[in-house]
């Protein structure tokens, strides 16, 4: 089942909901536990070393290793079923995912910039909402620009 969102004539963003079923239950558990542990670690580091060091860990690559590995594995299985070199294609897919994450870090910077500049004088929920919006818009814009160039 795929839902298509047309961005330009040259590219499409596809939401493939059936991809959720391809992820095994233990893979969800690993992500949940890893995400929880990294968030606890960020809090503990801030407690012992202060907010300047602790803040670095708000941008820790939390799900990136797991998601790149999953993409590699799923792409490998898909290509092997089709008779191609699964390992090479899987790693190429992980590389494209990593390039997307590198672009997304600019959105992460936009998120942090908004919180740093505006949180001290404004309502927390409003600033976190604006910052999340800034992450999404900056990431989307850069991805769209990169696709067009």
């Amino acid at each position, binding site marked *: 089942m795929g839902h298509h969102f047309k961005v330009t004539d040259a590219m499409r963003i596809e939401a493939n909901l059936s991809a959720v079923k391809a*992820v095994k239950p233990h893979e969800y558990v690993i992500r949940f536990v890893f995400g929880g542990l990294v968030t*606890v670690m960020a809090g503990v580091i801030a407690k012992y070393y202060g907010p300047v060091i602790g803040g670095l860990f708000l941008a820790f690559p939390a799900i990136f290793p797991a998601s790149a590995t999953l993409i590699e594995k799923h792409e490998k299985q898909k290509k092997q079923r089709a008779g191609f070199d699964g390992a090479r294609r899987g790693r190429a897919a*992980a590389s494209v995912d990593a390039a*997307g994450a590198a672009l997304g*870090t600019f959105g992460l910077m936009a998120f*942090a910039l908004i919180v740093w500049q505006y949180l001290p*004088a404004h309502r927390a929920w409003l600033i976190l909402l604006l910052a999340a919006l800034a*992450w999404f818009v900056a990431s989307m814009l850069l991805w769209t620009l990169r696709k067009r160039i």
Partner: protein
Amino acid sequence: MIDLLLRFLFGGVIVSAFAVLGDIFRPKSFAGLFGAAPSIALATLGLTIAHKGHIYAAIEARSMIAGAVAFFVYASVASWLLMRFRPPALAVTLVLLPLWLGTGLALWAIILR
């Protein structure tokens, strides 16, 4: 203890939610954007603001910019290595984590300290 448990639960739920978005969307370069989602920040900043206040959380956010620059270096090198030498993704993404930490700490020493 309750604070740590809440952080664990929020972190687990939010990181998992962004990971699912990354699974769903295609093309892969677009899905990759969710690999750099502000999941830990969203999970932890609410609690930090409630316990330590707005100024403390804003100081963390300033350092988060340096952490995101380090993430850019880390993800760019990982992407290049995977494309150039095709090593296993898990090995590359784990072995390069010290690069993220080193870059973040270098930025801290040069700019933030």
